[in-house]
């Protein structure tokens, strides 16, 4: 799993690098400063980070052999992950409504593909965790094979950490990005 995560680092790394290279190079709006809603995304970020806490607790109780508590916390991971996906879905729809799609400008292209790929990772994680929660409920996931959950947990925490980077890079650093300098004179002068 560690080897796979190393591989995934390169994957996200290249997408984030693309985003950074293209940052502030969109030739037309909507620009990040006009569209990003940082308070709402902060809430969804908090939700995702809390799911990591639930993950840690779930693993703890499964290792201790406390079946019901373990199942409950894994289920909490599923729910929190799904809530995060809900936020992302609403955000995507809102952006599309305001005229930002992957085809609009470079910000749209890099934003949707990067967060979309991350969202796909979260979705896979949610499905994976749902199976583990079911397995824990049925008694197939116990303290002696808690490694299965630990591996899934590594993946989950990794996806969380990637989100922290994405949140920083897209929402915090680029929050005030408007049109590139001199774009008006290039386009109209």
């Amino acid at each position, binding site marked *: 799993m560690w*080897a*796979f995560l*190393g*591989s*995934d680092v*390169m*994957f996200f790394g*290249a*997408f984030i690098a*693309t985003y950074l*290279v*293209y940052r502030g*190079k*969109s*030739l037309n709006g909507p620009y990040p400063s006009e569209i990003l809603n940082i308070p709402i995304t902060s809430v969804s970020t908090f939700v995702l980070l809390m799911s990591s806490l639930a993950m840690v607790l779930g693993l703890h109780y499964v290792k201790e052999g406390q079946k019901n508590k373990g199942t409950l916390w894994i289920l909490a991971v599923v729910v929190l992950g799904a809530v995060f996906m809900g936020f992302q879905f609403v955000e995507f729809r809102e952006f599309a409504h305001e005229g930002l799609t*992957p*085809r609009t*400008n*470079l910000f*749209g*292209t*890099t934003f*949707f*593909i990067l967060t979309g*790929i991350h969202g796909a990772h979260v979705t896979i994680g949610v499905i994976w965790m749902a*199976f583990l929660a*079911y*397995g824990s409920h*049925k*008694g*197939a996931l116990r303290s*002696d*094979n808690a490694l299965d959950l630990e591996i899934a947990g590594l993946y989950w925490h990794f996806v969380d950490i990637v989100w922290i980077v994405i949140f920083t890079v897209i929402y915090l650093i680029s929050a005030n990005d408007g049109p590139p300098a001199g774009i008006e004179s290039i386009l109209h002068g």
Partner: protein
Amino acid sequence: MTIKSLTLPQLFPRPKSSTGIWSWIGTVDHKRIGTLYGITAFIWFIVGGIEALLIRAQLASAENDLIDPETYNQLFTMHGTTMVFLVIMPLSAAFFNWLIPLQIGSRDVAFPRLNAVSFWIFLFGSLIINASWITGNAPNGGWFGYAPNSSTTFNPGMGMTYWVVGLNILGVASIAAGLNFIVTILNMRAPGMSMFKIPIFTWMTLITSILIVLAMPVLAVAGIQLQTDRVYGTLFFDSLGGGDPVMWQHIFWLFGHPEVYILILPAMGIVSEVLPTFARKPLFGYPFVVFAGAVIGFMGWFVWSHHMFTVGLGPAANTAFSISTMLIAVPTGVKIFNWLGTLWGGNIRLNTPMLFSISFIAMFTIGGLSGVMHASPPTDAQQQDTYFVVAHFHYVLVGGALLGIFSGIYFWWPKFTGWFLNEKLGIVNWALMLIGFNFTFAPMHWLGMDGMPRRIYTYAENMGWEGSNLAASIGGMILGLGILVFIINVFYSKMNKQIAGSDPWDGRTLEWSTTSPPPPHDFDVIPQVRYRDDFWFTKYPETISEYFHDDHDQAVPSGAQFDDHDHDPLVVSGGADDHDDDHGHGGIHLPDMSYYPFILAFGIAIFGIGFLTNTYIIGIGAPFFLWGLIGWSMEPVNDPE
């Protein structure tokens, strides 16, 4: 220990038979998967070779009109793509699959079903790329697929969509295989086999796998960006939307240069096994070869912009990448001297695998030296996009990787099949390949120096290029003849079987200690390892003192003691001690066969077809994908007995 597990209702019974087509589709045996990789890759090798010969036929004379420019573009694109992704990588994967478990004294790879899924995804991906020939739109933008040249604005046909979808699918297969071999080598070694006792081919496989796992996702990013550009109209490489035309080059070559080492390191590993065997000496400077490989694997990440010296990145970037490119020649040179040191003073047997390996050293050195020439940006500016570059990388990939792989084929063939390839035909094969190869690619140096550009479908009569081009075309035919002799050799040797014993070459590593071909479980007893080249020292204990000079090792002349004190010597005669399942059931347990990898790969193939045709078709692939995935995760590795 009874494990209560969840299972999916099975639509059809799990495969049990060991013969017939269903046994191949359901196989999880690393040896069978290796064979599948080898046969598939060899078929693509013939296809890619025919493409190359068509190119050479077109260029044999000036202003030839045998092939029109569009077809010519498709031919060189598919030749490059095929040879890199569908031939040399999977041929190396065939060797990884066959040899790694045998070399480390294991009974299979760490994840046998993941191994199967790698092969099936590779097969479907390769079929998708080549299906473009049937639909009449083969990719035509070069194997590097430079965007925006390859985006829909400039390349409206379907060709590059096939290319990018196919490569994305192949990338999944490579990453899965890479992960599998990393875990296998780190976790499945026989007791006593520490990292510095594993055979050198295993080391090179480990480094290659790490490179694959880290480099292929970068290609996947470039591929996804181009694919969304082409299929969904995003703007990654659209200059009208502000997209940067150099972006693709950076991402592609950040993958592309490690890829070069992915292609060559396995061949280096093969040669490092063949030379010691036929020189009857241990590999000279084993730790140096290991570290040189690791340094190449590391530095390979810092040289990508030498493919882009003429882009105009500025003197600072060009200087930095020039220095790193020159430095990476050092570990490569270290290896060449290690091979020469291995031969020096050895009791050399010159047979087919050895001849291939020695010519590997010579040809690879030529290719390496012309590589150092391009490391200088002003020189490179003259050579960029000329035949000089074509000559350089063919010396490295054909004279290097391919000769190494042929050496490996002749070397391990008796182990794979139980019979030898004919030695006389083998030498004819070697001679024709080597002569043909040099006739093809040496004149390209001259042509490139004379300014003949790459990727043009013809040239004018008065350029003075006819003679060299004709020589190259004739050389290409000789090279092709050499491959034909190899195919004849396989069938001839199969009909006149010359049976090989378990250890036909007086080998050094563990794969020679089991029967030829190995039983499904590889080893009756998992070997206990004491030394590097353990099998050799088991056969010739009197030579131990010759190679192990320190006091500790001299105290163990004949295997009475072990330098790994964790393991009780008595266990060796008693049986394997490192495999828990052997204890519980009193027998050797292999993973049962499974259809789910095939079903999963089939779903991914339909996804690919969906991207090419109609998004709704992706929906048809989803049930297969999920069925494969869920069935797989709920299927126990072994059915309860």
